[in-house]
């Protein structure tokens, strides 16, 4: 049992099956939109999970990278006529380089200095997007040119559900490859004991830097997709609260579990929609629900359940 679930193809297959089955039963555009939002958030959470769950570093400014990706597909096509997909790639490359530049000096230090630096970065990005109103439209945001593929403009939530689902699967595949490469093995060694890893000749700072850059790229792609899905973008995407929400998704779903990122994203996106019937008590219930999960599923939803099942099975 343990072998089967731990298998990378099983994890990818489970994710594909989940996305496919849910896609078949969703009744209307609204549900598809919520589904697409879950998948988009899951992409960013997945990247952050690599950083948080494997490299053991916290980023409190990941929404900053989401913002960069989102505004890349809004600004580049609007002002310079860059094709949307190229703009998406450009945002991702920029985010990755920015993360490398930021991570290089900081990740040499021990402890949670990256959290402080990213906190500042996230706030900076949000400030720039808000204040450069002449090009970004300021707090009111700006429209995003629609994505055109094969001559058709893509706007239906159904289509977006399948696109984001596909991107999530590809992102998961890449993440698994990374974890199974020498970098991934080094990462796991690092996770178990940083001192031992260092003693074994692993360049700890470099490995952490690579993972940070990869997670920034994931966040940027997620932001681009969100912007294209919405057709209008405001600086809210880069806000500190969204950074915290991403961290919550990872922790809730389970650190170090790729499937957990999807589940964590699903809980945090769907729950507020389901709780609207309680009106004033919405936030209270959302908070208590998260507290309950953290008490009873201490390692996050997926790892705890997996452990319980494998214990029962063996």
């Amino acid at each position, binding site marked *: 049992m343990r072998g089967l679930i731990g298998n990378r193809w099983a994890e990818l297959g489970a994710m594909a099956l989940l996305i496919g089955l849910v896609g078949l039963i969703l009744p209307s555009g*609204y549900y598809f939109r919520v589904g697409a939002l879950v998948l988009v958030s899951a992409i960013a959470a997945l990247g952050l999970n690599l950083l948080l769950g494997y490299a053991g570093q916290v980023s409190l400014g990941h929404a900053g990278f989401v913002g960069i990706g989102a505004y890349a597909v809004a600004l580049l096509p609007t002002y310079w006529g860059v094709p949307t997909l190229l703009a998406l790639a450009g945002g991702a490359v920029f985010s990755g380089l920015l993360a490398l530049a930021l991570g290089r000096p900081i990740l040499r230090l021990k402890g949670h200095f990256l959290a402080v630096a990213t906190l500042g970065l996230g706030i900076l990005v949000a400030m720039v997007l808000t204040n450069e109103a002449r090009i970004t439209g300021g707090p*009111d945001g700006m429209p995003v040119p629609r994505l055109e593929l094969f001559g058709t403009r893509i706007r239906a939530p159904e289509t977006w559900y399948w696109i984001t689902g596909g991107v999530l699967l590809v992102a998961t595949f890449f993440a698994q490859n990374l974890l199974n490469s020498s970098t991934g093995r080094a990462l796991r060694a690092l996770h178990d004991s940083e001192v031992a890893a260092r003693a074994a000749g692993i360049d700890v700072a470099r490995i952490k830097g690579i993972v940070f850059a990869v997670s920034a790229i994931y966040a940027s792609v997620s932001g681009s997709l969100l912007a294209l899905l*919405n057709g209008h973008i*405001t600086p809210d995407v880069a806000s500190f609260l969204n950074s915290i929400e991403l961290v919550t998704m990872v922790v809730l779903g389970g650190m170090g579990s790729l499937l957990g990122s999807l589940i964590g994203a699903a809980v945090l996106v769907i729950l507020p929609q389901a709780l609207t019937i309680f009106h004033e008590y919405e936030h209270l219930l959302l908070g208590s629900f998260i507290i309950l999960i953290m008490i009873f599923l201490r390692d996050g939803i997926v790892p705890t359940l997996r452990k319980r099942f494998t214990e029962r099975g063996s």
Partner: protein
Amino acid sequence: MTPRSILKLAALALMAGTTLGAAKAQDIKIGAVLSVTGPASFLGDPEEKTLKMYVEEINAKGGIKGRKIQLITYDDGGDANKARTFATRLVEEDKVVAMVGGTTTGTTMSMGPVFEDAQLPFISLAGAVVIVEPQKKWVFKTPHTDRMACEKIFEDMKKRNLTKIGMISGTDGFGKSMRDECVKVNARFGIEILAEETYGPRDTDMTPQLTNLKGKSGMQAVINPGFGQGPAIVTRNFRQLGLTVPLYQSHGVASKQFIDLAGDAANGVRLPAAALLVADKLPASDPQKPVAQAYAKKFQDATKQPVSTFGGHAYDGLMILVGAIERGGADPKVIRDEIEKTKGFMGTAGIFNMTATDHMGLDLSAFKMLEIKNGDWALAE
């Protein structure tokens, strides 16, 4: 927490969704996505209270031609992304016939395309001109625009022969947007902006910027587009520096809080605002007086909070919509056409005359020029 209980919860959530969808057929469903919490809650909260209060009142009186209104509200927390999700939900799940909401310009702009696609009328409660310009077939709005505030101020300056002015504006969304509108229309009133300064929304001292303005020779007045505490600090610093030229504030500070914050320095400041704030001081001949007074009284009695113009915008939006449904029935296409035909509707913001080319329908007479005297509002005209 077992997997079973999670399943149960999911089922419950699904059921909740469907019960919301299955309302009585004869009810007229109106949606409202508002920023009741979050940074824009000071706008969204009175809006929600107002809508609920008046829908209740209309239903108690038997509804619209015997059909009750069902108001479905969602809180977007000021987040444009959430707003769009809720807008989709209103359209596809709740199947509303129209929407009154959209607290901020950002949320309105992100929700607009949803209602355009679904061909449902959407009356926005947000300020900026971009909402109705360029015009969208299904989108309307009830608040004055920031351009109108600029025009009202410039009109007053012209009357007082003040033609050379300085401007100090906040870099927040409101200040920025109004500044941009002001520099678009100043030439039309023959007013020259000699110098411009800005300040951040959290700045605590604007003396340097004001000193710069003070140094400009020939400056006859200062205008301050801004929002929140910034304008109060500007007003205090303005007096501390001994500037004696007239100071104009925007409708963004048209609340008692501003006077409290600025203290004695506020005396003599002029600003454009909706008649609602001075409902009791309007001359009896003013046609706006009864509407403004009635709304202010009802809101204050029901919520024990001072009346704000923001809730008034929600009142105007709801009543325009209700009027349209009364005239033409509850078919979205007919409602849209009827909203466009709204003529002479007396709201808290002024007289609305919608046309095929004007989806706001207010003119400058909707604004009153106020002057602060002895710590209270007074009509300057």
